[in-house]
């Protein structure tokens, strides 16, 4: 790890917040927050979902205006009426959801809404300028590529380059590694260190404590909208940070232990895949000859680097796609066709992209909670849909999910990601009599929420339901699953007993056991 550039004591912080407060009607989002970022450092900003991290960063970037307190930039007071003011002041933010125009090229996205974009220009000029920027800041991009064709990591590079090209001296990243592969994460960190080495500052919001420990110089923790402290990262441990975030010590539960009255692992598989192969629209094999039995009362983990067939496997298991070859058996019978039939047969599904796949963002909570049960009593009755019953169901789900909802007709997109995830999880658990398939269930959640999500899965397992969890986090898989299957290039490399498996072995399998195996394991430890 490169040393931060040493600064004299007289150098003011790049950004200093003094007593910043932000209120929404009836809600305190931030109160009396003090925070400073110095030149040449990377500051980690931690907090549970809803701790006020995003609001605070929106204040810093001029999207919201503080109701009280001061923003001090390089020692001088500053006020940002608009995001443009903040950009001009050298503050750039990369949001978790990229704000790029998919149909435009990289060069066009970089130059969009930028005062320095030449008035009369051409494609070639824009691309040349982009190439120059990309070299200057050390973020390699293909200027002519259309953004929609890029991977998440490449899109993030474009976003960061876009921010840096506006002469940003303070870069704010909101959960930057959530969508990245380990390799991409490593590349990002390398670039961030180079950016820091030039005397710039970075604020990074993350839930992944290991990454926070790796990349940051200091850590500020927010809880309930207030700053509970700032520490040098060297003085912190992941456990201490986690405890600070939630306000109490996290008890690591051994989730392998079954409760006394837990249902035993079933003798017959709940779902079986026999030589299942999936080809995508381009006729490329994305899942190859997978044969698998999953039993009731077990948690089956799926490990692998993203994009190695996980999506296809979850969609096969939930009836969203049909195999190009091979058969699926549900409780020993040929599986019905279609996702609705799978759901009816007791298969729940927590997909990777909750907001767009499992929810209708613009519709109310009630409509979103009814989607699995609208066709059965008491909500469905003949051709009818009973809105009052649907509302009662939504209230029930919100209550067990421990989500407070002021208005059930409010669009579900207005809920935080964590609350969306809780609601989807509870909705799916209600119908998962046989099987629950959860893809990246802890992504975007804070530690407390992850722990309760894991308890959900364990209790479901104890009821005799089969649970399939897809995750990139080997620790999560090893701590929770009974067996772990490793996917690489659409092939099920091996199915291991998680008690005896070690992460080294799994890492090798994820890398296809051959080239790059060592790289993979390094990224995952």
């Amino acid at each position: 790890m490169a040393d931060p550039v040493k600064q004299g004591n007289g150098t003011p912080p790049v950004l200093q917040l003094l007593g910043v407060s932000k209120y929404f009607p009836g809600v305190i989002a931030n109160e009396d927050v003090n925070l400073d970022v110095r030149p040449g450092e990377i500051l980690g900003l931690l907090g549970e979902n809803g701790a006020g991290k995003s609001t605070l960063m929106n204040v810093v970037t001029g999207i919201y205006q503080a109701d009280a307190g001061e923003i001090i930039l390089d020692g001088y007071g500053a006020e940002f009426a608009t995001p443009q003011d903040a950009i001009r002041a050298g503050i750039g933010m990369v949001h978790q959801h990229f704000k790029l125009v998919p149909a435009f090229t990289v060069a066009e996205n970089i130059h969009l809404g930028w005062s320095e974009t030449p008035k009369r220009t051409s494609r070639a000029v824009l691309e040349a300028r982009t190439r120059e920027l990309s070299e200057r800041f050390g973020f390699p991009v293909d200027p002519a590529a259309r953004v929609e064709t890029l991977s998440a990591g490449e899109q993030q590079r474009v976003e960061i380059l876009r921010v840096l090209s506006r002469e940003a001296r303070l870069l704010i990243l909101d959960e930057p590694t959530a969508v990245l592969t380990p390799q991409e994460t490593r590349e990002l960190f390398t670039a961030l260190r180079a950016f820091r080495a030039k005397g710039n500052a970075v604020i990074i919001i993350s839930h992944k404590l290991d990454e926070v420990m790796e990349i940051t110089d200091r850590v500020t923790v927010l809880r309930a909208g207030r700053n509970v402290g700032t520490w040098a990262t060297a003085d912190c441990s992941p456990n201490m940070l986690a405890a600070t975030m939630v306000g109490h010590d996290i008890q690591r539960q051994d989730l392998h232990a079954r409760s006394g009255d837990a249902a035993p692992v079933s003798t017959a598989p709940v779902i079986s895949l026999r030589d299942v192969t999936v080809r995508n629209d381009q006729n490329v094999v994305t899942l190859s000859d997978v044969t698998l039995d999953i039993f009731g009362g077990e948690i089956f983990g799926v490990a692998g680097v993203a994009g190695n067939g996980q999506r296809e496997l979850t969609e096969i298991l939930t009836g969203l796609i049909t195999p190009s070859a091979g058969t699926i058996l549900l409780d020993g019978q040929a599986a019905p066709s279609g996702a609705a039939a799978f759901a009816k047969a007791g298969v729940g599904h927590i997909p990777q992209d909750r907001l767009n796949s499992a929810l209708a963002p613009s519709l109310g909570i009630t409509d979103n909670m009814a989607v699995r049960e609208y066709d059965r009593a008491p909500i469905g009755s003949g051709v009818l849909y009973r809105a009052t019953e649907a509302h009662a169901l939504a209230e029930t789900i919100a209550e067990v999910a421990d989500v407070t909802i002021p208005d059930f007709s409010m669009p579900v997109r207005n809920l935080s990601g964590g609350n969306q995830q809780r609601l989807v999880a509870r909705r799916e658990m209600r119908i998962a009599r046989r099987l629950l398939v959860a893809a990246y269930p802890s992504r975007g959640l804070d530690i407390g929420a992850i722990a309760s999500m894991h308890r959900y899965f364990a209790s479901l397992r104890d009821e005799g339901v089969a649970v399939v969890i897809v995750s990139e986090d080997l620790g999560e898989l090893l701590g929770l699953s009974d067996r772990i299957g490793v996917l690489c290039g659409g092939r099920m490399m091996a199915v291991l007993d998680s008690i005896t498996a070690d992460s080294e072995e799994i890492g090798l399998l994820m890398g296809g056991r051959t080239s790059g195996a060592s790289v993979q394991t390094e990224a995952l430890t």
Partner: protein
Amino acid sequence: MSRFQRFPTAPARRILVCRAIAILVSVIVVSLLLAMSGRNVGELAHLVLTSTIGSRFGLEDLALFMTPLLLTGGAVTVTRRMGLWNIGGEGQFYLGAAGAAGVGLFIHGPAILILPLMALAAMLCGMIWILLPALARAFADVNEIITTLLLNFVAGLLVYWLATGPWRDRVTGALASTERLPVSIPDLWGVVHWGFPLALLIVGGLAAIMSSTRWGYEVRISGASAGMARYAGMPVRVRIISAMLLSGALAALAGMFEVAGTVHRLQGGMADNFGYLGIVVAVLARGSCLAVIPAAFLMALILDVGIVLQTQQVAATVVLAITGLVLLLVAIADECAHYRVVTPATGRTVRKAS
């Protein structure tokens, strides 16, 4: 310290208030423009009021205007719920009128039998007319805006051809329209026929279908999120086709009401842009079926005011300009409804937010 702040949602009441202000502003702008062109705004306003909502005659006209607007507005709203646009209301209106006229002209019998038969024939014709765009949308992902729009021109010419060719008025030797239909929708109140309360009922029924049937729920989900519809295994293609067929049937029914209630003959040009105005109504109604009723009323009022202004030597294009102005200001109002004055409520914590 208080300031304006944009909120992600706007409550219906705020939207209503903002829209009322928008309509008031458009009235003021129109009045100013008329005053600047040297007209006596007071007299004009009096005339406009008495000729629209201030007299039985005006109210009759409003109801007649609203009848087709309710149905074509409802037709577009149904597809909006599915995330689609039916721009072909005009064509389906024509086909509905043609289907109804065909039954009325060539099948003779008591009105009590013939009128429902005309309505059925109209809806069937409207559904046939939108079937191709619906199938193309569902199975080939062909943009329904283009296909439905282009079929409007075909439908318009088809009706011209019918009315001036095979179905022309042979009794009188006229070439421009069919004979007068032997049956008509009975009058209810002055020139207002029973189509008006029926159209209101249909829109109400539509609202009930949308909010209280499984079909309506599936259309709502499919329209709001294709991803979720796929995830839940909803039959999206079937819903696209059924929503579009329903839309076509509604617009066609508007044509039947117009031909059997108001015009009494099939003739070219009779659709009077009601199909296109239905889009405006649907936009004003913001996808809500019940809101189609006030939206259709507002549109009818604008059209009626336009007629009054025309007789006061204001050009017909002014009506278009007023419609555009109202739409623009309503759009601005909808956006303004998201902004609220925020005063820091220090100390009154209810819950934390992210």
